């Protein structure tokens, strides 16, 4: 009986006390595990977008990423499906401080269009994922609190510093203790109701990095969900810097897209 009580005590209070890691450190590790693996990375992304009436749409693109100084990153996205966006490419220079630089290439017009940074919480290619979900939300945009820890997860609650810039009032993330991968994120509206849930459904270890290779985002406000899979994932590919320039925006760097 005493033993059981003790176990319970440890279950309830012990985890927090035993855990030396600060919530900032957890978030930092989770951010690295999600968005910064290796010096660079590549993945073929497939999205199945299911709308509120169960109609399905497909997106397929290859994404190349390279980490640069000061936690900045460059992304190159080459669209393969559907056919009306095929061969379009998209270039993003992401900075930790300040707005992204973004360019889009429309091959039928041979047009390199510069796009204003815009709202990060806008749908990415019509899916339930936001730009921010794909490239990472700035950890400094929220105040994080470690609300629970169990054998498997750190549970972190995050509240936006600037409430007006986002549609949620808070979100809660279950971060896997060993891999630091966020396995589930639940977003709450201003009334405290859950309305949007991210779930990692499959993880594989690629070049030593645990990697989410299947996930879904469900959004009750928009209705429906998007199922995302990553294929052909690789890290430390050795992407040259000039891949992330106008030259390759216009001429797909085939050898790195395969």
């Amino acid at each position, binding site marked *: 009986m005493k033993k059981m009580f003790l176990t319970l005590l440890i279950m309830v209070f012990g985890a927090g006390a035993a855990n030396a890691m600060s919530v900032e450190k957890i978030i930092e590790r989770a951010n690295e595990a999600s968005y910064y693996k290796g010096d660079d990375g590549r993945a073929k992304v497939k999205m199945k977008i299911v709308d509120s009436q169960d109609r399905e749409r*497909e997106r397929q693109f290859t994404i190349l990423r390279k980490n640069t100084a000061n936690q900045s990153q460059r992304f190159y996205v080459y669209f393969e499906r559907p056919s009306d966006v095929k061969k379009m490419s998209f270039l993003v220079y992401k900075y930790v401080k300040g707005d992204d630089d973004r360019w889009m290439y429309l091959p039928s017009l041979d047009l390199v269009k510069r796009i204003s940074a815009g709202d990060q919480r806008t749908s990415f290619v019509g899916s339930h994922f936001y730009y921010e979900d794909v490239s990472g939300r700035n950890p400094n945009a929220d105040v994080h609190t470690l609300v629970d820890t169990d054998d498997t997860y750190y549970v972190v609650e995050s509240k936006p510093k600037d409430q007006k810039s986002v549609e949620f009032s808070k979100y809660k993330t279950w971060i896997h203790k060993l891999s630091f991968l966020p396995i589930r994120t639940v977003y709450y509206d201003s009334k405290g109701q859950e309305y949007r849930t991210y779930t990692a459904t499959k993880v594989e270890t690629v070049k030593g990095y645990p990697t989410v290779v299947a996930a879904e985002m469900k959004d009750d406000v928009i209705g429906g969900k998007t199922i995302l899979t990553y294929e052909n994932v690789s890290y430390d590919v050795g992407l040259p810097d000039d891949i992330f320039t106008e030259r390759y925006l216009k001429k797909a760097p*085939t050898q790195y897209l395969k």
Partner: protein
Amino acid sequence: MKHIIFLFTFFMTSYAMAAVPALPMGLDDSSSSFSSDSFEDSVWDNFEFDSFLDVRAGTRLYDQDLQSDTSLAEVRLQTGVSYEGDLLSANLVADFIYDDVDRDMDQNFQTGTGSIDLREANFSFTPFDFMDVKIGRQVLTWGVGDMVFINDLFPKDWNAFFIGRDVEYLKAPSDAIKMSLFSSVANLDLVYMPRHDASRYIDGRRISYYDAMTQSESNTVVDAMRQTDDEFTLRLYQSVGSVELAAYYFDGFWKEPEGFDIVAGKAMYPALRVYGLSMRSPFGPGILSSEFGYYDSLDDAHGTDPLIRNSESRFLLGYEQEAAQNFTVGVQYYTEIMDHYTGYQLSSDPTGYIKDHVREMWTLRLTYLAMNQNLILSLFNYYSPTDKDGYIRPKVTYKQSDNLQFEVGGNIFFGETQILPSGTEAQPTFWGQFENASNAFVAVRYTF
């Protein structure tokens, strides 16, 4: 006490079961080895085929006698094949068209008339790490204007744009050799066109225009004499931080027949040289862009030849930003300042329309995405406060599925009727002359 603890434990456990996510596949006990997709090498892997079928129909909005009331009635099949090899890539894109408005036109690969429009037929290779070469028929674009072109002297298809074809047809293809050189100091694009590449201009065949000779709207087909000499253009560009800078040079001919050969009695394309600069940069929450070009009309150096368009300076300042989620607003100011205006005034027909020294124009672009970005509402508007005329392009696009898309749009021109010194009433201004071409259209596109 025992019961309380039991209940408490039960409560905790069930709470945990409801809220704690299950471990995803790969993080649970099952093995987590990574299996990459196996690709079977086949020579066909290097080929890609893309096609669409596009059906569109349009009608004129005003009663008029010079043109068919049906502005658009066509079925278009675009087929494309591309090859990506290690040493070479190649592209072939051709449109097969049944055009019910323009049935009798002869096949012409330059002007794009007839039942085949060859959009692309080119190959490209990288002879050195610092060089790309693309040879053949290709669509070329540069400059920072949105539907306003200063240093982009590649051919346009104004008919396609005005009657409501897809916007990609605004760009007519060039037959060219393009060489691109890359370095850390700057990048250079050199484009050589062995033969003058003219725009598919408004020639009266499909859209009537203001004819200065008759001082009235005319559908007399302008059969301009195309130049046979070559053209050359370059762009030198580099980014400094987030700011993109470019310099341009063009040596060739006007893209529209801006001259008249009195001996041949035909419209022609006078010689033209253009020097220009552009800048594009983030500014506040949006993108600021600016472009300048000096058009040196070599065959009319003093502006005294009434049959050849004068030299002029062109300047553009634009700003675009996301004004709200999924809603983008873009504004541009554009101006053309004629050189040797006195020469123009003195040599022009005193009874006819005399252009202003300075032509100013504003453009406004509004784009709103709705229904998971499957519904696109867009409006592009040109308005000239100096000519008091304009051109409105509203369009609604709905993507029914990944393959099927519907479109409804319009091309609405407006201007003021003027009383010319001769006493004739006319609409001679840049946009105003096309008022009777105003149209509305519907389209369906199926991609496969």
